[in-house]
């Protein structure tokens, strides 16, 4: 069964069109309230102090400096209203604003021939997830700082989530604390438990 899942990763990588955009929606289509969803209750969601938080950058990049939130907020941002699809089957339309990940990867001099960008998060028990480089470079893949034009609330991943509208929800990590550009497959919280690793939309 794991072998078939690996085969399905390859099939999905093959049919992935880096130029195919996830459909976008008008503001009137936004799901209200947008659901909070995690493997823990909202009360157990990370409470991150913005002043202490830094985004750590590791791996195959030229500039490994850590980024504070004010520094990240200065980067150009774009908005998207897209459908978030959960591995469970439900979906919800939300509005996310932030910096395209590909712009940031360029800025830090990431080796974009590497296979993955691996994210680590502050969720309890340690959440992490690998993102294949082609999806990381997709124009709609975003380092998200705002939901519905407001600073990202705790429920949705303050201070930063990675919004990937071409992936299932669990491949959209919240409360991100570091990213590593790497050729190694480092696994992920759900991926290791059996969810298909590519899980593309």
């Amino acid at each position, binding site marked *: *069964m*794991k072998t*078939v*899942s690996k085969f*399905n990763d390859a099939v*999905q990588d093959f*049919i*992935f*069109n880096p130029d*195919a*955009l*996830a*459909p976008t929606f008008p503001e009137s289509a936004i799901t209200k309230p947008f659901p909070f969803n995690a493997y823990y209750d909202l009360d157990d969601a990370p409470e991150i102090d913005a002043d202490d938080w830094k985004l750590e950058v590791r791996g195959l990049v030229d500039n490994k400096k850590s980024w504070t939130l004010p520094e990240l907020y200065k980067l150009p941002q774009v908005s998207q209203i897209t*459908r978030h*699809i*959960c*591995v*469970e*089957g*439900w*979906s919800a339309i939300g509005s996310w604003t932030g910096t395209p990940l590909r712009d940031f990867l360029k800025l830090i001099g990431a080796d974009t021939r590497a296979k993955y960008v691996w994210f680590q998060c502050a969720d309890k028990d340690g959440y992490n997830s690998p993102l294949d480089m082609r999806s990381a470079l997709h124009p709609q893949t975003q380092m998200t700082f705002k939901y519905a034009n407001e600073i990202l609330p705790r429920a949705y991943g303050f201070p930063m989530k990675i919004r990937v*509208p*071409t992936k299932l929800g669990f491949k959209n990590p919240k409360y991100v604390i570091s990213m590593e550009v790497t050729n190694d497959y480092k696994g992920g919280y*759900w991926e290791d*438990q*059996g*969810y*298909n690793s590519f899980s*593309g*939309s």
Partner: protein
Amino acid sequence: MSSLTVTDEQVAAAPAKMIQPAWVRLMHWVNALAMILMILSGWQIYNASPLFGFSFPREYTLGGWLGGGLLWHFAAMWLLMINGLAYVITGLATGRFRKKLLPITPMGVLHDVRAALTFKLGHDDLTVYNYVQRLLYAGIIVVGVLIVLSGLSMWKPVQLYYLVMLFGDYPTARYVHFFCMAAICAFLVIHVLLALLVPKSLRAMIIGR
């Protein structure tokens, strides 16, 4: 009625006549296995986020949990799709669909439904499908195509966006997928019941005669 008489005579003249060719039998049973795997793993996936106010009993689901159900579902889908595609292509190319399933006329269906309900529908010649069989078998092929297309829409809603458009949007594709499953389950109940009521039809699907 006269045509029925003729076929009866043909059967009598050649009692060992092949009713179900080998490719039909093989693909039928592969499909049966794939469908059961898809339905039981699909119920597991449904239970993770039910569309309606009920869940399927755990003991009738496959995979143990959502992740396991998904692994089964996305493995068995290849069996279902490859076998189904081969079946549709062979059915069209050999003319079997045309010969066996057509024509389907409203009058014919009405007549045979009435006959079936009064237990007057004969099954003397298993090589000829009555109108109820034709409607159900043709209908279930259409449902089979729909459940694969709606499933692919949900699996790859961005890459296969044109398929999603066919159903309207992602949530609608989910409902279509569910109702196709319900239709297949209903078909399965009737189909198995009738096969048991006419055991020689079951025998024909196993040994061909």
